[in-house]
C-alpha cells in the first residue's frame, strides 16, 4: 500500500531542475528541435503515437524531447495530453485498400496484383554501422524515383486477403449489415471486461506495448499456441481520415495519416462449423510500426481460439493475461510505483518478520499468521500439463 507523504518539495524541485539540465546536456552542442526529432527519429515518433493512441507527430516529437528519449515516458505524456481533449468525432473506418502505398510486401505470394514494393525498410541491410552518418554536414542522397507507373493516384491496391477470399480459401471478413447503429466498444470510455470481443482486443493490442506483444508473438512461433502464420501482406502508407460532422451529415476528409497494416494468414484444419481454410490475424497501427503490426496480427490470431474451437494452452491465448498486461502506461506505472515511499507498509512487514523470528526462536509451532505475504510462485498450466 502506498501512503501519502508530505515534504521534500525543495528536493523534488531541485531534482526536476537536474533532469532539465541533464536533458539539455552539453550547452556547446546545439539543442534538438521538435522538427528534427519528427523528421529524423520517425520510428520513435511512430511508436509514441501508436502506444500513446494519439496521432500527432509534432506532439509525439515534443514528448520524446521532453522525455529525454524515454519512449515509455513520452507515451505517458501523450496519453496524459489526450485526456484533456474533447472528443469531437469518430471517423469512418479508414480504407486501407485506398492507401497511398509506400511499402507493400507479401511473404505468401510472389506475384501479386499491384506488385511488391519494398519502400523505406531496414530489410536486406547488413546491419553494419554506417560511419558516414557520424560525419556531419554531408549532403544527403536523394531517393531515386521510378517513372510514373500510370496508376491513378486513388486506384485501389487489392489486399492479398481479398484475392484469396475470391476463392473461398480464407475466412471472410464482412461488416455486419446493422453496423451503423451498433456501438463500437471503446477502452478509453469503458473499462476492459472479460471475455472481450475482438474489436476491444484489437484496440487494446493497437495501443499495447510493442515489446510485450513482440515477445508474446515470438512465443506463439516457438510453439506456445502455434498458429503457423504467413505474412500474407504488410502495407504502409497514407490513408484519408473522414468524419461525419453533426452539422453537415456527410463525410468530410480532415487529413491523411500514416498507418501500417499486417494480414497474417494462418493454417486452420476446420472445426465442427467451419471447413478447412486459412484464417486471419490482423494488425493495424497508427504510424509506421511494422514489427508491432506483425506482432499484433499474431497475437490477435492466438486470442481467437474460442471462436475457432482451438485448445487454449499458451500465455498468448490467455485473453485476460494478454490484455491486462499489454498497456505500457499501466505496466510502467505499477512497476515504478514501487520506488515511491512505502514506509508504513514496510514497517508492518518488518514487525511481522520480527514476530515470526521470535516465535521460531522460542520453538513455538505455528501456522502462517493472517496477512502473511503470498509470494509463492503459482504453477502455470504449462508447468503442470504433461
Amino acid at each position, binding site marked *: 500500500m502506498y501512503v501519502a507523504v508530505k515534504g521534500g518539495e525543495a528536493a523534488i524541485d531541485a531534482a526536476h531542475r537536474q533532469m532539465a539540465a541533464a536533458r539539455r546536456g552539453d550547452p556547446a552542442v546545439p539543442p534538438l528541435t521538435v522538427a528534427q526529432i519528427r523528421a529524423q527519429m520517425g520510428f520513435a515518433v511512430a511508436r509514441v503515437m501508436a502506444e500513446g493512441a494519439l*496521432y500527432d507527430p509534432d506532439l509525439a516529437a515534443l514528448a520524446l524531447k521532453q522525455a529525454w528519449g524515454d519512449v515509455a515516458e513520452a507515451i505517458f505524456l501523450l496519453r496524459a495530453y489526450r485526456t484533456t481533449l474533447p472528443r469531437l468525432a469518430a471517423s469512418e473506418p479508414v480504407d486501407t485498400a485506398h492507401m497511398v502505398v509506400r511499402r507493400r510486401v507479401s511473404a505468401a505470394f510472389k506475384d501479386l496484383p499491384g506488385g511488391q514494393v519494398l519502400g523505406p525498410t531496414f530489410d536486406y541491410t547488413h546491419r553494419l554501422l554506417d560511419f558516414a552518418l557520424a560525419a556531419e554536414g554531408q549532403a544527403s542522397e536523394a531517393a531515386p524515383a521510378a517513372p510514373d507507373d500510370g496508376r491513378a493516384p486513388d486506384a485501389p491496391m487489392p489486399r492479398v486477403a481479398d484475392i484469396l477470399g475470391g476463392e473461398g480459401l480464407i475466412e471472410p471478413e464482412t461488416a455486419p449489415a446493422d453496423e451503423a447503429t451498433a456501438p463500437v466498444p471503446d477502452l478509453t470510455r469503458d473499462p476492459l471486461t472479460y471475455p472481450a470481443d475482438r474489436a476491444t482486443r484489437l484496440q487494446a493490442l493497437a495501443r499495447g506495448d510493442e515489446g510485450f506483444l513482440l515477445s508474446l508473438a515470438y512465443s506463439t512461433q516457438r510453439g506456445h499456441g502455434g498458429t503457423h502464420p504467413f505474412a500474407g501482406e504488410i502495407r504502409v502508407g497514407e490513408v484519408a481520415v*473522414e468524419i461525419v460532422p453533426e452539422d453537415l451529415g456527410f*463525410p468530410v476528409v480532415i487529413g*491523411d495519416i500514416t498507418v501500417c497494416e499486417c494480414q497474417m494468414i494462418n493454417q486452420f484444419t476446420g472445426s465442427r462449423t467451419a471447413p478447412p481454410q486459412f484464417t486471419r490475424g490482423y494488425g493495424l497501427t497508427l504510424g509506421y510500426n511494422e514489427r508491432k503490426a506483425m506482432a499484433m496480427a499474431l497475437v490477435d490470431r492466438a486470442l481467437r481460439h474460442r471462436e475457432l474451437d482451438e485448445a487454449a494452452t499458451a500465455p498468448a491465448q490467455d485473453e485476460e493475461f494478454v490484455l491486462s498486461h499489454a498497456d505500457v502506461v499501466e505496466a510502467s506505472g505499477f512497476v515504478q510505483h514501487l520506488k515511491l515511499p512505502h514506509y508504513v507498509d514496510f514497517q508492518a512487514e518488518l514487525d511481522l518478520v520480527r514476530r515470526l523470528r521470535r516465535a521460531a526462536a522460542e520453538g513455538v509451532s505455528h501456522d502462517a499468521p493472517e496477512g502473511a505475504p503470498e509470494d509463492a510462485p503459482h504453477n502455470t498450466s504449462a508447468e503442470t500439463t504433461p
Partner: protein
Amino acid sequence: MTLSPHDEPAAPMAMATATRQRWMAALARAPRARLEAAWAALADPPAVTLLRPPEIGSAMVRGRTGGTGPRFNLGEVTLTRCSVSLPAVGGAPLIGHGYVAGRDRRHAELAACFDALLQDPARHATLDATLVTPLTEAQAAARRQAQAAASASRVDFFTLVRGE
C-alpha cells in the same frame, strides 16, 4: 447519408455534396500558408463572425477487422474545428465549417471561411479555379510522386526450383 468519396455522385443533391466534399478535403489538406495567402489576396474580404471559435479536440480513428470486417477503435487523431458566418448573400448568411486534422486553429478558421465563401455563387467559380482546383491537383501530384518514389523499390522475386 453514407456517401463514400469513392462513389460516383448520382443525383443533383448528391452532386452538390460531392462538390463540397471535394473542396473541404482540399482545404483540410492544404498548407495553412497557402490559405492565408489566398485570403490576403481577396479583393473584398468579407467580415467574419465566429459561430464556433477554433476548438482543438480529437477524433477517434476507426479501422476494420481484416480491412473489410467489423469496425474497431484504432486510436485518436488531433482535430481542430471552427464554424464561421459570413454576411448574407441572397437573404441567408453563409455558414462555413472547417474540420482539420492537427492543432492549427488558424488553419481550421481559414478552412471554415473558404467553405463559406465557396457556397457564394458569385465567388464560387473564381475560388474554385484559383484555389480548390490547384490545391486538388497539387495534392494528387504529391500522391503520384509518393507512389513513383515507392515504385523505384518494386521487386520481382524469383523462386528457384530445387532438385532438378
